[in-house]
């Protein structure tokens, strides 16, 4: 397939705008496509780039787990046609900025890689339904790999604001490819890094780590993204210990706003298989309903 999700298909809408619309009050957009300005754009390691954009108030109000559809510039010799879904890495309503953390993997992200400070990028969002933090949760566990390292990062600030402590289990192929470690730590999270290179990232070891956290009373809920194997471990533990969880799912997308039914996935809802749109019903779903 040639439209890889360059990165996350992860997203989520804060709700709100949708049902309002109709008659009485003047109509107002809650999702906009705009030309955002590149404020900074840096390589954080050999694979990931950090992009900061100046944007309008709607985009800057994006919530953790939501996503944007980026109309990527064309890299030399390639013509990506569709927008690319990209999960939110950070949003600052006061400074009117949004941030993305991406890995160069396809035509879309190769196009993004060409952006220089001052360039404009057409961003559409915020989209989808994001994470929910229950005020009662004192301790949550974040398990992230791949795109999940970016998608789950905005939870660090949100959890701190909620008075919730995070233990973040961050997984990558090699220690130098881990991202978001400092971000989590700066918000007071404990970070447990696991990598393929150190043979610590396998499901068995992650399960050991999670069981210890549960036993220590450090896990009121799971938040995960980026690994089906690790999701299954958390589903098993969530069932065993009666814990809630949320997962951000990826899927190839076209419209990003629920029109085309391209990004459907099956979910197990009380034993019944239900098809849902990742862009519209998600991208954050109940951990127990998700199917790999």
């Amino acid at each position, binding site marked *: 397939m*040639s439209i890889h999700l360059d990165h996350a298909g992860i997203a989520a*809408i804060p709700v709100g705008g*949708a049902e309002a619309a109709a*008659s009485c009050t003047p109509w107002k*957009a809650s999702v906009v496509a705009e030309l955002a300005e590149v404020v900074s754009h840096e390589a954080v390691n050999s694979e990931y780039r950090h992009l900061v954009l100046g944007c309008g108030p709607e985009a800057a109000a994006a919530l953790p787990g939501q996503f944007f559809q980026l109309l990527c510039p064309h890299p030399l010799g390639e013509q990506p*046609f569709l927008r690319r879904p990209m999960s939110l890495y950070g949003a600052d309503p006061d400074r009117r900025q949004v941030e993305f953390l991406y890995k160069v993997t396809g035509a879309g992200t190769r196009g993004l890689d060409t952006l220089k400070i001052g360039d404009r990028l057409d961003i559409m969002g915020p989209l989808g339904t994001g994470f929910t933090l229950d005020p009662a949760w004192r301790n949550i566990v974040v398990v992230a790999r791949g795109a999940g390292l970016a998608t789950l990062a905005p939870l660090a600030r949100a959890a701190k604001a909620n008075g919730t402590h995070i233990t973040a289990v961050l997984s990558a192929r090699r220690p130098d490819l881990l991202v978001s470690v400092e971000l989590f730590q700066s918000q007071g999270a404990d970070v447990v890094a696991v990598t393929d290179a150190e043979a610590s990232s396998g499901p068995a070891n992650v399960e050991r780590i999670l069981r210890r956290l549960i036993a220590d009373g450090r896990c009121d809920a799971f938040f995960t993204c980026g690994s089906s194997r690790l999701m299954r471990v958390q589903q098993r533990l969530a069932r065993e210990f009666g814990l809630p969880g949320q997962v951000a799912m990826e899927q190839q997308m076209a419209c990003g*706003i629920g029109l085309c039914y391209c990004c459907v996935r099956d979910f197990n809802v009380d034993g019944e298989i239900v098809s849902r749109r990742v862009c519209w019903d998600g991208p954050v779903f109940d951990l127990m309903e998700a199917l790999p």
Partner: protein
Amino acid sequence: MSADVDLSVSIGGLRLRNPVMPASGTFAEGLERVMDFNRLGAFVTKTITRELRAGNPLPRVVERPGSLINAIGIPSKGVPYFVEKTMPHYAPYDTPLVVSISAPTAEGFASLAAELSIPGIAAIEANISCPNIEEDGKAFAMRAESTENVTRQLRAATDLPLWVKLTPNTGDVPEVARAAEAAGADAVVVANTILSMAIDLKSFKPCLGNIMGGLSGPAIKPIVLRQVFQCAKAVKIPVIGCGGISTADDAVEYMLAGASAVQVGTATFLQPAAMTTIIDDLETFCRHREISRVTDLIGGVVIEEADEPDLAWLDPVS
């Protein structure tokens, strides 16, 4: 604001505030977050079927330069869900609701149209052209006879304005348009997506789960524009143009070729507010060209006698 330009059009007795509406399958309530629904010429729903349909296996879309190939497969939750859950969403708006329907048989089309001839629905668009729905991409609209038959049965089943959506995947679209007109259609929509295919060079597998799909987007515009031109000359009922329209210039081009209204689909995936932008720019275009009624554009292409093309070679070999 539009005091000086009249954008309204009439499609088979149905008055639209402007000639811009969504193409079926590219419109849903999500766009309410992006645009004021009271600005559209009409709503056109995603095609519904009587039977529940899961849709095609993934991947359902693949992109190509300037275009998109889709094989979504018309996932449908059936009629009761549509009437109870989908319709109320559009009720608050002062915009006509056009319901796109499909069925595996002519009788199925007719009974579905009859069941949906209810208050709140302004017109029926019969999707007799979806290339994915039948084996090998065959559809009613590939032949004049099957088009006439299904249209006749639809006509007998409903008093609502009846739009018949034709396929571009046939040798003689004007002949099919004439068949729809003869059987009582109030308008034809020209056209649907172009049957196509893409193969992945890593795996050697088709890019789509359904193997084949429908091509849409700017790449197909010149082809469908030509078909609209031909159909508009062939029939007296309105032709609604649909194929690769992204800008007001595209819409004007279609209207000059003979379209009375236009549908916008794939463009919405790239610019979610494409339809309202087109409406604004269409008004600006008319004002700059001192055209007081948008209907003055319809069929306005200027063809000098000496330029009349020799279309003989385009006739299908029968």
